[in-house]
């Protein structure tokens, strides 16, 4: 349901360049609920994941991501609802019989086995002949670029190498579905970024369906075809990274994913595709009306910092007059130089603080503003998202 709302958001369909293959769902999670005592860890959650998709579960700590993954792997059983894999209910199927493999957050490598022994573990259980096991291990070792380390034990490997072994071990059985629980959390930023790209390339090459858990939104956005944002055991929104960022369905999602300015207000006038909103502390703002207009008039307008532009004089007055541009005046109070971007905080004359970020497209600071300088912050109504409060 959340997905429908996202699809019918303010975003034109053409911007979505990363649509996953339109196959039948591999996995269907149907109103699944999991309680620990009285505490609801996963709350009537429904989700469909397609074959070959790279799906990310994103959410704050303790929202139930691991619990959901463990239900898919079979280590926890849902209290209510169904989990269907290829159309079949897998409630009664034990973990070792599911065509699903999991890469554990702490890797859970067998310390008494070598790298090759770890990778071969699941293959031996599957009863493959020895020669085939050797071939498959060699293939996996090459896949995760661990050549020459086959005989090492896990405690003789670096964190990044251990993570590759865990990945190879989980992939060796050629699962239909691979679950990854924060696989990159233990790696440093550089290694994490390069591993993200490797994982994506690997997933494309193998065509395996990946479900990855992360609380790093950049990671989710980089890798996933679609992202499910979870909060307190529920899915707030399921969407492509772009839809999630540009067309969040709720104020919570808008604030959780990326940085955003939010102005609370009430709808003052409705004029075709335009809403005029009287905000509490930023004057009147014109915004594109959502395609599915809500009932409430108490709403908020959200705008991402990079869509707010600053200038000394501002756009031509005519455009403001006809409602084609929002124009807010204020004083720069804070400047933070971040290399590629510079972040500004502007205190509006009406009281609100607005954050704007501008790409540093030139080496010299001809385009920058100093604290205390009067500026005009302006943005298009099409870049605003109207959300319920």
């Amino acid at each position: 349901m959340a997905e429908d709302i996202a699809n019918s958001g303010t975003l034109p369909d053409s911007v979505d360049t990363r649509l996953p293959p339109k196959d039948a769902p591999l996995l269907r999670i149907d109103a699944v609920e999991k309680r620990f005592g009285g505490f609801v860890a996963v709350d009537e959650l429904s989700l469909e994941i397609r074959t070959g998709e790279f799906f990310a579960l994103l959410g704050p700590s303790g929202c139930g991501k691991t619990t959901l993954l463990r239900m898919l792997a079979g280590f926890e059983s849902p209290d209510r609802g169904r989990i269907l894999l290829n159309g079949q209910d897998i409630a009664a199927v034990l973990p070792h019989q599911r065509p699903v493999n999991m890469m554990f957050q702490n890797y859970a490598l067998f310390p008494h086995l070598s790298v090759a022994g770890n990778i071969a573990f699941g293959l031996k259980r599957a009863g493959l002949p020895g020669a085939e096991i050797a071939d498959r291990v060699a293939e996996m070792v090459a896949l995760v670029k661990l050549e020459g380390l086959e005989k090492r034990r896990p405690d003789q490997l670096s964190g990044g190498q251990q993570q590759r072994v865990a990945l190879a071990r989980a992939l060796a059985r050629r699962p239909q579905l691979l679950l990854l629980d924060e696989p990159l959390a233990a790696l440093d930023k550089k290694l994490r970024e390069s591993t993200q790209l490797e994982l994506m390339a690997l997933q494309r090459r193998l065509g395996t369906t990946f479900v990855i858990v992360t609380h790093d939104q950049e990671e989710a956005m980089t890798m996933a075809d679609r992202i499910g944002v979870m909060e307190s055991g529920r899915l707030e929104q399921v969407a492509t990274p772009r839809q999630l960022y540009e067309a969040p369905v709720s104020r919570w999602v808008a604030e959780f994913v990326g940085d955003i300015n939010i102005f609370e207000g009430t709808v003052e006038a409705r004029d075709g595709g335009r809403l005029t909103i009287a905000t509490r502390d930023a004057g009147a703002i014109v915004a594109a009306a959502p395609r599915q207009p809500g009932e409430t008039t108490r709403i908020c307008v959200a705008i991402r910092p990079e869509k707010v532009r600053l200038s000394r004089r501002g756009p031509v007055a005519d455009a403001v007059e006809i409602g084609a541009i929002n124009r807010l005046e204020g004083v720069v109070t804070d400047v933070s130089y971040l290399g590629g971007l510079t972040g500004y905080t502007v205190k509006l004359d009406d009281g609100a603080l607005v954050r704007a970020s501008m790409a540093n497209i030139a080496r010299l600071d001809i385009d920058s503003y100093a604290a205390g300088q009067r500026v005009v912050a302006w943005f298009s109504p099409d870049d605003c998202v109207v959300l319920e409060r």
Partner: protein
Amino acid sequence: MAARASRLTRFNIAALALGFAFLYLPIVILVIYSFNASKLVTVWGGWSLRWYGDFFNDQAMLAAAWMSLRVALVSATAATLLGTLAAVALSRGGHFRGRTLFSGMLYAPLVMPEVITGLSLLLLFVALDAERGFWTVTIAHTTLTMCFVAVVVQSRLGSLDRSLEEAAMDLGCDPVRAFFAATVPLIWPAVAAGWMLACALSLDDLVIASFTTGPGSATLPIRIYSEVRLGVKPEINAICTLIIGVVTLVIVAASLASKLSSARGESAAPL
């Protein structure tokens, strides 16, 4: 370790020497006198292996030694099985009702006076009308040593990462196989240490064995004790030296095994 870190002063050396003398002087004297050629325990008559020879010709002593050895091997094996199972159940059973009570009850026999354990077992065997002998002593020793094994194994299990077994299940093992594939290889040193500890305890025990044994099936400690009551023969010194040798070997092996176990444990801990 600590001694290496801080300096060995003269005072420390003296204190150490005194402590170790207190602990080991009696044993050293016993060992030396076991090689005494003289028949009188208090008179040194030169080196000799005569008393060792006497022991190996004393049929009653040899029978008692054989009995002790059999009891130790059988009871240690049984205690290791039961103790390991108890440890697994307690650390894996989740937080079932009365779990704390059960683990408390497992530890209680550790501090129970042996006289009480022995007496209660005797009463049980009498009530069951069991013929007292090898089996009753073996069962009694299993009861005594099983909780030691459980404690050793449980502490090892507690430090193990549970997700290893889940990983094994994920990779195609049913729960029982997962236990044998992922957990047993990591706890076997602790299990082996428990077995050796049980062996040593069983070889040592006098009190419980004398409560539960029957006529004609004395263990070595019982036999020695009854001989000593008639006066200390130098032959006893020889036997005791042999026992000390065996027990020392077993203890050293057990501590090596548990060292190996915890070394494995460090590498098992994730990152």
